[in-house]
């Protein structure tokens, strides 16, 4: 990866009392990179991610996201990134169109521009006949793809995805990754967590956190080479089985 650094962390640390949830992690993620952020339950992934998206103040270390400092410019970070959480975050009792308009409005996308982006989003997802359908009657897979596109409605340079494909069917899971590839091809940085180890193979680089520490970070090919195994599942197992900590 040669693009500009969009996410930078140095010795980033979070302590809760005597407990060190995230222990001095270093990270540099580039424009257009798909970065897999892996770890066992309780390894500190969520805490680290919360610091990077401006929701949690670090205890020590430094981090800049989209050029903004996590200590002093967290509001600017929130405006510059997209975020899709584990829990479905769109409104089930609003229609497809209403959801897009709502989030477009929250992020301050100008009306004419929002209309243009809405049209292209609806076209790309094949939702033309469903713009006035309430989300509750759409299949989960469609909703997840819509949630991704809505998280990108303000055209952020970085998108954070927290287990975006949990419970989704096999084909939708792949279609979802094609949305990720397409975003990456446009230069968007994709920061993604997952429990599906085949998805770890789709990332340009992946890191694995164990007990708050960054235990490994490299391309999937290099990690497999380093651990002399054939799959990312094996790499993960080798590293994470020694974990002392649970959630």
């Amino acid at each position, binding site marked *: 990866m040669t693009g500009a650094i969009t996410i930078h962390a140095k010795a980033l640390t979070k302590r809760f009392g005597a407990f060190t949830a995230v222990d001095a992690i270093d990270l540099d993620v580039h424009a257009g990179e798909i970065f897999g952020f892996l770890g066992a*339950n309780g390894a500190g992934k969520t805490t680290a991610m919360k610091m990077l998206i401006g929701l949690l103040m670090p205890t020590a270390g430094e981090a800049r996201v989209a050029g903004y400092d996590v200590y002093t410019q967290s509001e600017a970070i929130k405006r510059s990134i997209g975020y899709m959480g584990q829990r479905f975050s769109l409104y089930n009792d609003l229609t497809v169109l209403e959801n897009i308009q709502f989030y477009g409005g929250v992020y301050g996308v100008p009306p004419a521009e929002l209309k243009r982006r809405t049209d292209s989003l609806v076209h790309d997802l094949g939702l033309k006949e469903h713009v006035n359908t309430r989300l509750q009657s759409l299949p989960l897979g469609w909703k997840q793809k819509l949630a991704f596109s809505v998280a990108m409605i303000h055209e952020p340079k970085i998108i954070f995805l927290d287990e975006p494909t949990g419970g989704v069917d*096999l084909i939708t899971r792949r279609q979802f990754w094609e949305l990720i590839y397409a975003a990456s091809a446009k230069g968007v940085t994709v920061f993604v967590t997952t*429990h599906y180890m085949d998805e770890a193979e*789709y990332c340009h680089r992946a890191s694995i956190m164990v007990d708050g520490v960054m235990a490994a970070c490299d391309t999937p090919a290099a990690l497999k080479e380093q651990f002399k195994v054939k799959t990312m599942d094996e790499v*993960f197992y080798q590293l994470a089985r020694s974990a002392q900590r649970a*959630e």
Partner: protein
Amino acid sequence: MITVDHISKRYGPVEALKDVSISVPRGELFGLIGPDGAGKTTLFRMVVTLLLADSGTITFDGHDVVSDYRHVRRNVGYMPGTFSLYQDLSVRENLEFFASVFQTTVKKNYDLIADIYGMLEPFADRRAGALSGGMKQKLALCCALIHKPLVLVLDEPTTGVDAVSRREFWEMLKKLKAQGITILVSTPYMDEAALCDRIGLLQDGKLLRSGSPQDITANFDRPLYAAICKEPYPLLLALRKLPELDSVFPFGTALHITAKEQLDLPALHKELARQGFSDVELQPIEPGVEDLFMHLMQ
């Protein structure tokens, strides 16, 4: 041990299960595989007598689950998809409660749970609500086992669990199976299919196929290839445009390609090279359960 015979179920306009039939012999580890909303939980709730079917019958150890629900309830261990133990009772209290409900004692069947409970014992006095996800899962399994059931019904026990804990959980299931317990388990993870004796592929309420993982993949009726290259996404877009190909999907490090008939690989190589893809490795491969499932979904 369990026979599901032409079961259908509707929730209003939604057909949750459509004419599903499955048979699970004694001592088998059977996996029901499918995404959210496929109907896995609906089927399991019928087997454990918590929900009635619209049509069809289910027998459990030779007893009808509706007319003889008491026999089922005495002999089934059920672990629902959401944690449903008592959060404000301790680990030990939960276990003792479930034993007493089934008129037995923890001591009497301790050998069955010894391995699993051993990992929980240091936290015996902790409230169940304060346990980690992995620990909760182990406690729920102990509580489902404490009356020595004939059948264990486990609804997505590994969803949201990390890859290491998932492996440990399947090790536990293997040991329980070795003790003669019939196990019915559901999962959205395809890699767990290979760990089952037999599986059923469920999608939108329909059982697409059931059988051993080997038998199921033997039915794959089109040529399948893997393509590996450095930049898979541009290659994927290019392959999708070729008329002789049926489907192209990412599969871990490779792209899997199905074709209408056998491909002329040298010609395909040449065409891809012409388009600027010079580092593509192409080879025919054997299908996995996931290939077949995706093929049946389309």
